């Protein structure tokens, strides 16, 4: 079935065309190419998923053998099951909407076609990642999206700060990617293949549950997932990655790339089931990340940084879901998160666009009446993010929390932590809504939102509001996890976000609840500064890793190893200069020195003879 191959090939082809033309194409043609290729690819995905939903057959296509070396034969091959269909739909569907939005958002940019070249390349790499039939091809896509993330974060490269943010994103994720590469090598040496399905079968038959090899292999894969999905302790790159254009943040740093780690764990879940210790670690990691990022989001002033920390926090929920074995709930949250977080980012982009690149939420305000479409979108997105009842986020977050509750021993702790996170989520998302859209206007917007920006917002609004009813064909992929749960637990899950909304209303809009006494105190101020800087982890990493490394590099700048050889050269040169002075060029001098030498030799011989 060549339709499958077309899905990643179309954006790749368009990316190559846009790159080769090097910005000489008119903007209209570049836009048609960039948006049209992703749109066509989305049409292909619709046809494929219709077929898949009808018969439920796994689709496999082998295009060609990539490498053939002594039993190691990874192919360029695609494997499409329910999980892949979900991912492909999210990538091409949300991706298409974001591309359409970008046409208007980037209309005045000089590097218009470069932008679409990178975006299309990203979509192609991301599709390769989720469709790959073997882990090596997956790794190719994995690194491809990393490169595109680097290129797009540093898209406005004339500002050195953007270049720094791009480098940081690249280097920090590289730490995780190295662990993942080691994991792939371990899997290949132990099990002899990297094709995902045979690999899972081999692992199931050869490895014991809880053995040391599965724990090591999954821990290494987890390292890669943690780096890409911005989880503790490698999450520090994501808030800085907001330096890129806002649609980039929506596509790469909210909807698709950052969820690649979740996809990786879900795709290799049979391995993780063999290593319960790693799975528990995933759950705790998710919980720690979601709480930490939620607290940090509370203190931010930059609209995009709030959304970035919220993304980290929501991916924490997905990790928690994976950790407690509720894989479908995790993927469900991945999908709904892609809808509402893309919506929030695009709405934020519309605000930034209309307010001349203003990012500080305290210089906005009163935008409710001036940008009604954006306000509605942001409200629906925030409601879904806060998991208010009947929004898409509610269903997915609810299923994660219920699955956590059902887990013996650590379940209630995870559930409580998740609830606290939900409270904080409601608090910071409605703080954002109330500060930006209510109150008095501080900056006047000067642009209306055109149809190319409004249409994606409206469609994503519908998806964010109603996405909870979309069924996912994941029954054949993951083991079933049904938990009978008490109604009281469910009721608490519904009540907590509403409580958060109420608190946010009382503090930021009604004014009945004053937090000035807390925030103005010394402890409150210190805590606020601490959270504003994301728990000062950047400073810690700088002191522990960056500073020693640069010091080492500086000490090596003069090449200490070369000192020995340089000394040898110096001694030889000095000897040369000393001997050159005896070469006077005068014949008599040479004759005289020969005579004296002869006299000395004769004297020595005579002395020895006597």
């Amino acid at each position, binding site marked *: 079935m060549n339709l499958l191959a077309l899905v990643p090939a179309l954006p790749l082809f368009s990316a190559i065309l846009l790159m080769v033309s090097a910005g000489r194409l008119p903007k209209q043609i570049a836009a048609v190419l960039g948006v049209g290729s992703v749109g066509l690819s989305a049409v292909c995905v619709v046809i494929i998923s219709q077929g898949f939903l009808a018969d439920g057959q796994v689709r496999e296509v082998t295009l060609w053998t990539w490498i053939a070396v002594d039993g190691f034969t990874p192919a360029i091959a695609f494997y499409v099951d329910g999980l892949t269909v979900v991912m492909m739909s999210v990538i091409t569907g949300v991706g298409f909407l974001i591309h359409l939005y970008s046409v208007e958002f980037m209309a005045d940019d000089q590097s218009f076609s470069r932008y679409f070249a990178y975006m299309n390349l990203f979509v192609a790499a991301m599709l390769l990642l989720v469709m790959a039939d073997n882990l090596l091809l997956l790794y190719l896509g994995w690194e491809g999206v990393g490169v595109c993330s680097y290129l797009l974060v540093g898209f406005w490269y004339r500002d050195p700060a953007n270049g720094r943010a791009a480098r940081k994103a690249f280097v920090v994720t590289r730490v995780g990617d190295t662990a993942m590469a080691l994991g792939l090598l371990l899997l290949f040496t132990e099990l002899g293949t990297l094709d995902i399905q045979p690999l899972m079968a081999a692992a199931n038959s050869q490895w014991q549950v809880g053995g040391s090899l599965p724990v090591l292999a999954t821990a290494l894969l987890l390292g890669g997932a943690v780096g890409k999905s911005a989880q503790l302790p490698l999450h520090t790159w994501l808030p800085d990655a907001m330096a890129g254009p806002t649609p980039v943040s929506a596509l790469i740093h909210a909807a698709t790339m950052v969820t690649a780690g979740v996809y990786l764990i879900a795709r290799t879940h049979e391995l993780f089931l063999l290593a319960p210790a790693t799975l528990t670690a995933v759950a705790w990691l998710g919980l720690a990340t979601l709480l930490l990022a939620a607290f940090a989001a509370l203190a931010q002033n930059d609209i995009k940084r709030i959304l970035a920390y919220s993304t980290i926090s929501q991916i924490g929920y997905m990790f928690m879901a994976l950790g407690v074995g509720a894989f479908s709930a995790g993927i469900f949250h991945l999908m709904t998160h892609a809808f509402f977080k893309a919506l929030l980012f695009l709405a934020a982009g519309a605000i930034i666009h209309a307010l001349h690149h203003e990012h500080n939420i305290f210089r906005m305000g009163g935008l409710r009446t001036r940008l009604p479409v954006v306000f509605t979108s942001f409200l629906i997105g925030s409601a879904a993010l806060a998991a208010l009842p009947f929004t898409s986020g509610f269903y997915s977050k609810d299923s994660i929390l219920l699955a956590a509750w059902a887990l013996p021993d650590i379940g209630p702790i995870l559930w409580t932590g998740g609830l606290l996170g939900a409270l904080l989520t409601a608090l910071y998302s409605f703080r954002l809504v109330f500060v930006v859209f209510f109150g008095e206007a501080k900056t006047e917007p000067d642009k209306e939102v055109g149809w190319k920006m409004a249409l994606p917002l409206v469609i994503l609004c519908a998806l964010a509001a109603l996405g909870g009813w979309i069924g996912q064909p994941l029954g054949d992929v993951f083991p079933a996890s049904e938990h009978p749960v008490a109604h009281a637990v469910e009721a608490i899950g519904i009540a907590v976000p509403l409580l958060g909304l109420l608190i946010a209303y009382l503090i930021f809009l009604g004014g009945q609840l004053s937090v000035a006494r807390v925030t103005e105190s010394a402890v409150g101020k210190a805590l606020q500064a601490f959270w504003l800087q994301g728990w000062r982890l950047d400073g810690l990493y700088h002191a522990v890793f960056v500073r020693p490394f640069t010091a080492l590099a500086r000490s090596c700048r003069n090449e200490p190893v070369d000192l020995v050889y340089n000394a040898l050269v110096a001694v030889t040169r000095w000897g040369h200069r000393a*001997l050159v002075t005896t*070469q*006077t*060029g*005068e*014949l*008599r001098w040479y*004759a005289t020195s020969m*005579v004296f030498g002869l006299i000395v030799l004769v004297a020595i011989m005579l002395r020895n003879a006597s």
Partner: protein
Amino acid sequence: MGGLQIPLEHVQVLAAMLFSCGLLGLMLRRNIIFMLMSLEVMLNSAALAFVAAGAKWGQADGQIIFMLILAVAAAEISVGLGLVLQIQRRFKTLDMDTANRLRG
């Protein structure tokens, strides 16, 4: 072989004096032609010592070596004179202290 016998020691002292004269000439003269002449004197002093020694012991070796030295001296002087011509052409002088271009 009768008649007046010159003692070997006298000949050796004469040869040593000739050699020293040649050596001093080589070290002190600056004109290339005089240097070559000094060289000839040194060669002949050595040849004299060989001849005298050969006569003393009644061996032919001394005479043979004399012939060899004669040949060497002839070869040397022919090459040397060729060099003298070249030096005269290039430097317009025979002073060897001014022709010191091969210094390091």
